[in-house]
């Protein structure tokens, strides 16, 4: 059986900016309160079009689980690592809080966690995925903006969406090869 390659595909046109995903992530992962303390965010993109025909996109995002992860390279203790499925995780006990990974991440996906006394970020909810459940932000979304799945499985929803629709990724010029895909 082929090794899994996890990814999330976003259809941002559906996003209502209800922020259910941000709440779900906070509760699921016990993310502490605080201005800098969040694993995902929903950016309100600038208005498009001309009055009265206006459009606005809401773009949720989080750690991109980069295949060429700048945070992993600069982590001096190996606290930041990639799993066989390509999920970038942090071993909190190994983190010395040097914050090099925070300075290296082009997506501002990391923060210092009061709970773990280490750097923290999105984990693709691996504790749920290992039980066969979806990540909390994927499951909670009322309009299914996110789809989570295995890129190596041609029948998975993520593979089908990427085959059928045009997509883009954030900051491709950084050559990080993100595992987050945005449908056009």
């Amino acid at each position, binding site marked *: 059986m082929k090794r899994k390659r996890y990814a999330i595909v976003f259809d941002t046109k559906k996003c209502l900016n209800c922020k259910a995903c941000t709440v779900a992530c906070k509760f699921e992962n016990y993310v502490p309160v605080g201005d800098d303390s969040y694993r995902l965010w929903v950016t309100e993109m600038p208005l498009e079009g001309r009055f009265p025909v206006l459009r606005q996109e809401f773009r949720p995002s989080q750690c991109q689980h980069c295949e060429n992860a700048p945070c992993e390279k600069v*982590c001096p203790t190996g606290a930041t690592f990639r799993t066989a499925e390509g999920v970038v995780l942090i071993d909190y006990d190994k983190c010395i809080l040097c914050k090099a990974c925070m300075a290296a991440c082009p997506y501002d996906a990391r923060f210092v966690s009061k709970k773990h006394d280490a750097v923290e970020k999105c984990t693709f909810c691996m504790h749920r995925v290992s039980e066969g459940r979806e990540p909390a932000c994927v499951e909670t979304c009322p309009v299914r903006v996110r789809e989570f799945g295995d890129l190596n499985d041609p029948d998975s929803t993520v593979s089908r969406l990427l085959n059928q629709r045009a997509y883009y990724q954030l900051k491709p010029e950084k050559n990080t090869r993100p595992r987050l895909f945005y449908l056009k």
Partner: protein
Amino acid sequence: MTNQNNSLSHIFRVNKDIPAMPFIACGAALLLVGLIGVIRVLVYGQEAVYGVTRQVPWGLLIATYAYFVITSTGLAFIGGLGHAFNVQPFARIGKRIVLLAFIILLAGFTQIGMEIGHPFRLMYLFILSPNFSAPIVWMGIFYGIELFLLSIELYLIFVKSPKNHALSAATAFLTLMVGVAATSNLGFVFGSLTARPFYHGIYFPTFLVVSGIAGGCAILLLIHNIIYRFNIPDELSRTMSGLSKLMGLCIGAMLFLSAWKIISSLYTAPAEAYEAATALLSGPLAINFWCGEIIFALLLPLAMLLMSRGKNFMIMGAAGLFFMIGMFFTRYDFIVAGQLHPMRAGNAGSHVDVLNGLVHYAPSSGEWMIFALGLGLFFFFYFLAERFIALEPE
């Protein structure tokens, strides 16, 4: 026993002529402020005491760490020129150079020790689980070796008798080489950050090495003026003029490097580097840049060194003082400027607060107190050594 007493009196003596007491007192006061800062961090935690943020994770303490350790490796470079390459004017003041380099390196370690959230974890994880592709690991290795080599140099200079010149020269050479490796690698600690294009390239590693050597010269010119109460004896004239020439050369190289860095960061407005350069030239760091860097670190000391014509030691000492102030800004400005460009636009919901397209950072009182700890350690222990250890030129 008598022999031992002789060798001890050879090392220790009370130097009444040296005006060390005000500096020792000042160092003790700064140490006290620093210790209060340490207690605040231990009680309230770094998050509450430091001003660094998610967007600007490296702030004042990284800058002061660089300020101290690179001055130390610059001193080691000058010491290496003296002992390994037999540049006599520098070899004569070898004792001061090695002691200064050692104490300033320790001052730098206080900064990184307080900046890193888990310094004790660092010590064993760098041995048990190092990631050799991370420049920070090499930083630890190089600066660890540098401290070890400086300790050996201290032993060879102060304790070992009879002197083994070949061993001294070899150690001084290694200290010089490891110092250059450590400093340039420190530049790459920044250069390796994918997110921060302003740090990329050869500029910062080179600039740090060159400015570190200038810093070594500057502090030696300043310290000698203090020690001799602005009346440096003529027997040290070749040393002082040698230091001023080396310092002038390095400042010239810094001007050259900075000019091209700024020009290349403005021309065609390369993404993110452009914002960093304009933050320096006309943005939130402009006063620091023009007054601190351009005037204090570059133009003023260069003009003063030219004015001194290699003869007026007092002007050289003043140039050293201005440079030491200015060099602080070169570290702080570059490190902060490279992080001011936000990683996403500051739209609603993005959690990023921007002003004129840039995020904000200002050091907190807690961070300044930790800087005081490093400065205090330097002043207190160095001038204590001046007071009680025989450091006169050979």
